[in-house]
């Protein structure tokens, strides 16, 4: 197979991803010009990525929820609920049990936060999957319940959650040297993966992709990682929450394409009947998707508490909509069966980039909403137009 043909095919297969990346670059360039270069300064660049993390944790799970043909409206409030639980425990509980041991307190807070999220996912997933109540209704009700739960725990007040150690989860930075070590590890892993994949393909007697293309692609991703680390090191270093998000997104990507659980989710969303006749346990699979979603809400809630430093009554307000918007913008189909974690991450980054840029330009919050809503609709409209004309 000649390389140019291979390249062309690869390009046409991933056209949506490239358009998305181009759109993101366009947004960046536009704001950078409008803010006289301050937008892409290391400090703002670093903040931009930090700002996208909380809702992006939610988006990684939301992709699978939407892919199976469901929706989860409770994720924002669940993350908020977890954040106030975590804050409450730190402010009122751990100190009396483990006085003077902030790290133990932080570790316990995180564990409890994750468990609370997962348990709520178990509950909602059970009702949706096994009691056959539509996800829209269950999670709408769940949203109300959690909103009440937040008020019950906070008693309408703001609870501090800023103990040493815990604050590092969302506010910490890796020292530059460690940042470079991470970058080196990632690059090594990328190349190792490429070599291994080629070896296995050869072993099975498949046609091995063109070596130059493979190396070029791996170099490209390595360069992205190196550039990213170089920029953020210019400011404070690699942001801990972004690193956590990257790991989560990688794991979720792996789950979605390399495990039976993930594959079945796509098959269920693509054609429920065919999935059923292929021996897939639809109820259990959908149940597990919601448990995973709950767990990720737990992660998002912990990061949220650490990010804000408080548990507040408004915690997580509207995050579910941001997460859904990120998925849709990233190419997830509301009809089910289609969507990638990577796309949702880029979608989340675009939304965060818009918010950040508009704030920088001192656009009033009201108009920020108008712009973001319009961008979402426009993006899908353009996508529909091209699909129709293909």
């Amino acid at each position: 197979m000649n390389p140019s043909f291979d390249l062309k095919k690869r390009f046409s297969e991933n056209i949506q991803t490239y358009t998305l990346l181009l759109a993101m670059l366009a947004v960046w360039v536009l704001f950078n010009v409008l803010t006289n270069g301050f937008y892409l300064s290391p400090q703002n660049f670093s903040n931009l990525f930090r700002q996208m993390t909380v809702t992006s944790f939610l988006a990684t799970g939301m992709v699978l929820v939407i892919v199976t043909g469901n929706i989860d409206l409770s994720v924002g409030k669940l993350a908020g609920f977890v954040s106030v639980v975590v804050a409450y425990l730190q402010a009122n509980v751990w100190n009396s049990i483990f006085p003077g041991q902030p790290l133990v307190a932080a570790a316990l807070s995180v564990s409890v936060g994750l468990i609370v999220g997962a348990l709520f996912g178990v509950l909602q997933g059970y009702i949706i999957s096994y009691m056959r109540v539509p996800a829209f209704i269950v999670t709408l009700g769940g949203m109300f319940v959690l909103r009440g739960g937040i008020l019950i725990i906070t008693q309408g007040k703001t609870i501090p959650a800023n103990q040493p150690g815990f604050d590092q989860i969302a506010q910490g930075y890796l020292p530059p040297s460690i940042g470079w070590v991470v970058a080196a590890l990632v690059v090594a892993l990328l190349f190792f993966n490429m070599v291994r994949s080629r070896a296995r393909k050869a072993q099975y007697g498949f046609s091995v992709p063109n070596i130059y293309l493979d190396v070029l692609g791996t170099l490209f991703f390595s360069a992205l990682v190196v550039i990213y680390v170089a920029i953020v090191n210019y400011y404070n270093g690699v942001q801990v929450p972004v690193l956590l998000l990257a790991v989560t997104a990688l794991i979720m990507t792996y789950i979605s394409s390399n495990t039976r659980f993930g594959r079945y989710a796509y098959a269920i969303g693509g054609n429920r009947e065919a999935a059923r006749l292929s021996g897939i346990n639809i109820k259990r699979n959908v149940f597990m998707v919601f448990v995973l979603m709950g767990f990720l809400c737990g992660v998002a809630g912990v990061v949220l508490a650490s990010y804000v430093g408080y548990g507040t009554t408004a915690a997580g307000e509207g995050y579910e909509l941001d997460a859904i918007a990120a998925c849709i913008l990233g190419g997830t189909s509301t009809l089910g069966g289609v969507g990638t974690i990577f796309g949702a991450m880029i979608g989340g980054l675009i939304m965060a980039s818009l918010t950040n840029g508009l704030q920088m330009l001192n656009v009033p919050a009201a108009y920020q909403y108008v712009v973001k809503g319009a961008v979402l609709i426009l993006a899908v409209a353009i996508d529909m137009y091209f699909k129709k004309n293909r």
Partner: protein
Amino acid sequence: MADDIILDIRNVTKKFPGIVALSDVSIQIQRGKIHGLCGENGAGKSTLMKILSGVYPYGSYEGTILYENRELKLEDRSIRQAIEEGIAIVYQELTLVPGMTVGENIFLGKEPMENGVIDWDKLYAETRQILEKYKLDVPPHAIVKNLGVGKMQMVEIAKALSENAKILILDEPTSALSKAEIDKLMAILETLREHGVTCIYITHKLEEFFRITDNVTILRDGKTIITEPTHVFNLEKLVKYMVGREMKERFPPNKRQPGEVIFQVENLVANDPNDTGRKILNGASFDLRKGEILGIAGLMGSGRTELVTTIFGEYGNIISGTVMLNGRPLNIKSARDAMSNGISLVPEDRKGQGLVLIQPILRNISLANLDQFASFFRIDQDAELAASTQQSKNLAIKASNLHARVDSLSGGNQQKVVIAKWLLTNPQILIMDDPTRGVDVGAKFEIYKLMNELAEKGVSIIMISSELEEVIGMSDRIMVMHQGHTGGILDVKDATQEKIMAIATGIEA
């Protein structure tokens, strides 16, 4: 001409890519009579109905249709226009809004208005008038979903008549009705005839032609075979006209030697899982030998698909009866159970049940087989690709590569993907529900060859087919189903199309 012809179909031909669905069809329908339309599955009845209702518009077929002595020119999908012309179809699948009342349904889209609001009194008064005129025994205010199927059909008929339909087409109106409901329907048709409404009556239940129709036209392979007054025919004659075809050299030779019996179904009785009052199987029995191809024939609605999906664990609620594999009773509750016992099912509806159309060929082939390649944490994607590629080669699936979306393939290749998926499960028993439906002749032949090879290797195959030639051409034995039970099992040496039809229609037991 003494007869008053309301609808004159002249030399109509309708072609689809690859097949001729109607070829030079001519039928004259007399005003005020009930005209039966008779033919096997695929004889062209539904194509003809789609032309009359505007689904296939004027210009997409050759020939002319004279309606009330002028040419009928329906625009594309203008079912509305057909209704305005006075041609209405009462479909097999009922098309009412379940949550609305009888009156609301009858006047849906043409509600009588006064000062911009619906005049409910007038609506229900007119509903009552129509219902009484044609002796339809349904309360105007009843919610449709609370009515039985028989009454729903009456509402459908009333709806058509409220549009002043001159021709009422009834497509298999009795397939879902009980005996008492059928009697009522017959009485209603008599009333319609008294009021001068013309009916075209399509059914698979041949005895109904003798009960109600004045004339019968027989279609076969898209051609009109004969049109005569009903009294000219008897059951045997009808069947003979329906199937009278010669066998062509369309089936590959085989050297199968079926072995001992490995699978037995005895007296299976099962209910519809969505409507537990309705029996879908009523004493189905058969056995299957190793390396045998058992054909299942029967009319639409005879319970063929219900039988195999129930065996596969994905449809009926089994009330009684046994399913035994190698002398051991099976209790299959899901597709997964069936697969773990070596039973696979190539389902009837390729697009609706067989494939995830938006996914690549590879993922479709591997979908039912991921357990072979996966641990909890990981799918070995190289092994997956290797095994799927092997299957794809064995079946000669024509695709640029396995990463192409499955809906980019032709019907025949799509069907091969479904078969590849199920062969990869390495079944002992392969159930194929209408495996060559919508598949071109070349791909059909390849599928037949594949079936022969599998059977020669010792796989037992159950094949449902709507084409009698196919059943006779491919099977070792043929089970004929009639109304949910085994009407009879024929050895292929003794099987003729007439015999199968006779059992399928209940003439012969």
